[in-house]
């Protein structure tokens, strides 16, 4: 078990009430596992079925492995422009 720090932005940071969260993850855990662990937090109802996740500043697939040293972020629907 390791602890993964996840950055939150915009509507997700507002709903979960903070800009970063620390989430426990089993060794060999994936992006999908991480998202499931986040769902138990208050305010996580805001997350869609498959929220976009970035690892080390790149969009990650649900099956991608997550390491506790990775820079991890949950990416709300973007609306730049």
């Amino acid at each position, binding site marked *: 078990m390791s602890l993964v720090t996840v950055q939150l932005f915009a*509507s997700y940071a507002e709903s979960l009430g903070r800009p970063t969260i620390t989430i426990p993850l089993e060794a060999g855990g994936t992006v999908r596992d991480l998202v499931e662990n986040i769902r138990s937090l208050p305010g996580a109802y805001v997350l869609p079925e498959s929220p976009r996740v*970035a690892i080390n500043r790149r969009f990650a697939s649900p099956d991608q492995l997550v390491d506790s040293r990775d820079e991890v972020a949950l990416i709300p629907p*973007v*609306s*730049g*422009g």
Partner: protein
Amino acid sequence: MRRVAIVSREITPAALIAEVQSAEFGAISLFVGTVRDTNDGRSVAAIDYSAYTEMAESELEKIIAEAEDRFGVAALVVEHRVGALALGDVSVAIAAAHAHRGPALDATRFVIEEIKTRVPIWKLEHYIDGGREWVDPSQGRGVISA
């Protein structure tokens, strides 16, 4: 000339034109996005833009590299502003230069459409009626109302 930046100051579109201008190019295309006074039928008072700056700049770099591959446009500059913007303020500017107009026009269109789908930047709209909403284009409207 290739440059991208997330900035917290005013954007001056003419400065982007000057940056890509060169005698080898016969065409410069400039796209400027500005803060509109209505959205989804609601009167907008102002917009707060925020970003995951490091990733946004990294995605923008990838997008302009893709634009160079697709359209042969080597001179491309993009600035996107974050912070509190007023109606009419410039939120984004894209300048592309090429020997001919077609690739220059195609490149600016490509870059703005890609920004709208994959660059981690967010709009929090404030309305005249006092409400506020995170804009969520995937839903056609915001996800959180207040």
